[in-house]
């Protein structure tokens, strides 16, 4: 199946050959995927991020994906310990991490094996492998290295052994630190990137370190560049077009945090949890620049309750968490729903249930986001579908929360959290900000829950407002916020809290269709899968198949127009990264199959026979995989 994937890639038939000054032919590529993997702590991640940033500055399309081991310090030279970065470079916009890698730099053969076994490498791809292990004093290590090397070479990979550490030792006493900059230099040569930008990047990355450190890293960078120029027989160029507008290059969690800054929210209460923490780390560093405060609470429940208290008394606040923390917050979320205190909750999803896969990507929390907390607790649920969307979703969430006095859950996942992609630099808009805290006197006799009969919206009373004194309660209550002892009062509250979701829905636009408005197959997705789904769909469209896709940013309420779109396609299916039973399992049939989250919601709401396909392997679903799934679905008999 892989042959279909090379259309825009290292396709020798279509690549143009040119000759560089050194006499090497330069192959022009539309795109390439490079991975840099090492033991944890050897700096492969910094190398990959720097490569991504430099390529973005040159105007390339870039998507970087962190390769993260589950432990902080896994044993060295272990298959499960691969740490590093995947960088997908293109001459066009790149919206996901792509399929198998075209080129891999590995600091040892074991972490490389980890990537081979995870099927992350393209058959026959180029491997640049640290060769020091060949002469390792421990004969076992040397032997393992040689065996692995020979096996990979026999399997058809183009393995190029490079004495990285030996070359670095010429310049620095501890080559283990700094090897990553040598590798960065090699990649600068391989991809014909601008060395001036690389020097600037190193200046920036080590800005908090001594001058001597910056200098030695630049020396290593130059050495890597020279080594590759002199010793490698290939060189690539990925044509780039500089954007006309300024772009920012950040990962999803940084984008979320920047969105918090831009939204005018002032309090973020959180408790450390992977993979949400990096958003809180960054926010802790910079929130005070806009007068904000990150409060690290004693636990997840306290973080949620703290944010509710802050919201109740002031501007809408937020709490940031991941799966297990989201579960812990459920009772408090119900309180915010019941009392109609606005609140933004960010859930950077990870693998579940329970501790699950803390560093891995999954979309398993949609149903608990929509239906979590006991009783009927209607909440707005949004999902960011790109890095850029992480930024804007927070601003939108704050506005919805404060307009409707609702809890708004923003779902991201660890795929978006740690991936980087350039997007147009946001232009600040004062309308993004929360309005000042209302301290005006309320009319005498004003009711704290004077629900509008059509929309369910009531004006929020904030402490400090004269005449507004009342006790807000998690108990069922009437318009005066008095405990509802009569039967009708409880139903009235339920009705209006629910109506608000319908009111939100009336403000939403139908989601756009990617591709033709009718056809054979409609693919529906949500969250971080957007880039991969659209890439796969585009490939089918390019091959003349009648496939379109639709991506949902709002999951609750669902925007209008979805049913109409679905009805114009012969088949509808979702692609999700949460579990659905596999129809091929012998005891699974129509009566007991558990569907993926959005498929289930679409089926329930629209009575349309929506099929689903899911993969829950802890990593972002590859466009090539989706392409094959859609292909099979198209061929399936009705």
């Amino acid at each position, binding site marked *: 199946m892989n042959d279909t994937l090379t259309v825009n890639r290292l396709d020798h038939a279509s690549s143009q050959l040119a000759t560089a000054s050194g006499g090497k032919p330069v192959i022009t590529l539309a795109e390439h995927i490079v991975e840099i993997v090492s033991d944890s702590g050897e700096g492969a991640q910094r190398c990959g991020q720097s490569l991504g940033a430099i390529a973005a500055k040159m105007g390339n399309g870039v998507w970087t994906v962190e390769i993260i081991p589950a432990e902080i310090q896994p044993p060295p030279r272990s298959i499960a310990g691969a740490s590093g970065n995947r960088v997908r470079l293109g001459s066009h916009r790149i919206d996901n991490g792509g399929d198998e890698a075209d080129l891999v730099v590995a600091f040892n053969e074991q972490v490389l094996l980890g990537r081979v076994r995870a099927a992350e490498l393209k058959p026959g791809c180029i491997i640049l492998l640290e060769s020091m292990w060949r002469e390792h004093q421990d004969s076992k290590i040397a032997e393992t290295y040689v065996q692995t090397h020979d096996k990979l070479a026999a399997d058809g990979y183009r393995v190029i052994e490079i004495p990285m550490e030996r070359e670095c030792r010429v310049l620095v006493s501890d080559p283990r630190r700094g090897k990553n900059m040598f590798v960065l230099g090699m990649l600068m040569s391989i991809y014909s990137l601008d060395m001036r930008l690389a020097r600037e990047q190193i200046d920036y990355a080590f800005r908090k370190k001594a001058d001597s450190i910056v200098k030695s890293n630049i020396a290593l960078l130059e050495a890597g560049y020279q080594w590759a120029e002199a010793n490698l027989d290939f060189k690539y160029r990925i044509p780039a077009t500089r954007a006309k507008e300024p772009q920012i290059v950040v990962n999803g969690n940084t984008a979320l945090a920047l969105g918090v800054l831009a939204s005018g929210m002032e*309090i973020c209460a959180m408790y450390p949890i992977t993979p949400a923490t990096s958003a809180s780390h960054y926010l802790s560093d910079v929130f005070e620049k806009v007068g904000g405060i990150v409060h690290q609470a004693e636990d997840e429940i306290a973080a949620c309750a703290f944010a509710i208290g802050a919201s109740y008394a002031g501007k809408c606040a937020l709490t940031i968490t991941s799966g297990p923390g989201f579960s812990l917050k459920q009772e408090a979320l119900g309180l915010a729903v019941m009392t109609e205190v606005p609140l933004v909750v960010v859930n950077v999803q990870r693998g579940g249930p329970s501790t699950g896969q803390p560093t891995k990507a999954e979309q398993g929390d949609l149903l608990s986001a929509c239906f979590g907390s006991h009783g009927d607790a209607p909440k707005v649920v949004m999902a960011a579908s790109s890095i850029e969307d992480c930024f804007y979703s927070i601003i939108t969430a704050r506005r919805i929360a404060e307009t409707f006095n609702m809890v708004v859950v923003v779902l991201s996942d660890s795929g978006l959290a740690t991936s980087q992609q350039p997007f147009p630099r946001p232009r600040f808009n004062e309308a993004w900000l929360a309005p000042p805290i209302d301290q005006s006197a309320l009319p005498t006799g004003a009711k704290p829950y004077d629900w509008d009969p059509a929309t369910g919206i009531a004006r929020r009373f904030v402490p400090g407002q004269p005449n507004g004194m009342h006790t807000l309660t998690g108990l069922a209550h009437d318009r005066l916020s008095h405990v509802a002892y009569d039967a009708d009062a409880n139903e009235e509250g339920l009705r209006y809290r629910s109506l608000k979701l319908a009111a939100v829905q009336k403000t939403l636009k139908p989601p756009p269709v990617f591709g033709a408005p009718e056809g054979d197959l409609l693919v529906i997705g949500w969250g971080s899968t957007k880039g991969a789904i659209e890439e796969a769909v585009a490939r089918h469209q390019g091959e003349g198949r009648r496939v379109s896709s639709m991506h949902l940013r709002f999951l609750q309420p669902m925007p209008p127009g979805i049913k109409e779109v679905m009805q114009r396609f012969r088949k509808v299916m979702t692609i999700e990264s949460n579990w659905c039973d596999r129809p091929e399992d012998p005891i699974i049939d129509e009566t007991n199959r558990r569907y993926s989250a959005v498929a289930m919601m679409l089926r329930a709401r629209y009575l349309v026979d929506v099929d689903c396909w899911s993969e829950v392997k802890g990593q972002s679903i590859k466009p090539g995989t989706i392409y094959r799934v859609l292909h099979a679905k198209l061929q399936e008999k009705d």
Partner: protein
Amino acid sequence: MTIHATECVMRMHDDHHDLEEYQGSIPRWCSGCGDNAILAAMQKLCRNEKLRPEKTVFVSGIGCSSRFPHYMKTYGFHGIHGRALPVAEGIKLTRPDLHVFVNTGDGDCCSIGAAHWIHAVRYNMNMTLMLHDNHVYGLTKKQASPTSPKGLRSNTTPRGAYLDPLNPLTITLGVQNVSFVAQAVDWIPEVVYDILEKAFHHKGFSFVRIIQRCPEFLPDMFDAWLHDPLRTLMLTHEKGLHLSPGLTKVYKNQKEHDPLNIDRARELASITDPIPVGILYHNPEVPRYEETRLSPHLRTPEYIQAGLESELDKFTVWPDEGPAARAAA
């Protein structure tokens, strides 16, 4: 700054409040419940301190005690079980101008909310906590609480409570940043008031445990103490509790205790019979979390924009040679 005489009069008018102005709905506690004494003392305190009802917030969790905010005519937040403190902290950090009080019970604070209690002491935010400690769960109809005496027969301990009770005072006094710990008993309302007044004026987290009767489920629990004034140990000090002549005559078991002496406070706190009543510890010098955290800047749109743009600058790829080059051009 000068103000007009009319404004002066208006302010005086604004600041004057009658007791009724703090009275919310009619309490639904059992008659003889200790909560009533706390409510009466608190309404009186609000009036005497001229607290503006709209600037005053009572936060509670779940339990009999936690109905308290409904009976005040101020702002109130009756939340979920155990979580009154983090809600109150969020309020206080956002709005230091509000007077924040917390009402919680021995189950709400010392069991389900214990983590928040410990950390609230450490945050030392300016608020007053009233621990309504009746040694039993009332709202759920008589189960043993963490402060129930060993052997107490309840619906969940029909053959008697298995464990010794925890002591909220010694625990609080063991936490870093503790700044105010006091104990009162509901059957001496004058002292409840005096202690709450001191707690209110303390700039920090005031922890006030009020031992109170539950006439419904533990009607005789404190009879012995009620009948024998010597089983109440009055802690007095010029910086602590001052007893009225009337109380001095009745409660003859008195001890001078300097509330700054934490070692002595811990010793006194571990005495359960006689019951120590008064200010066990008071240190006005402990830093407050909200002081440490609050931004000195006005959060104007210009200020927010400047902060945001400077962050965006860090990540921006410019279409030309960058901001410096453009500025030069």
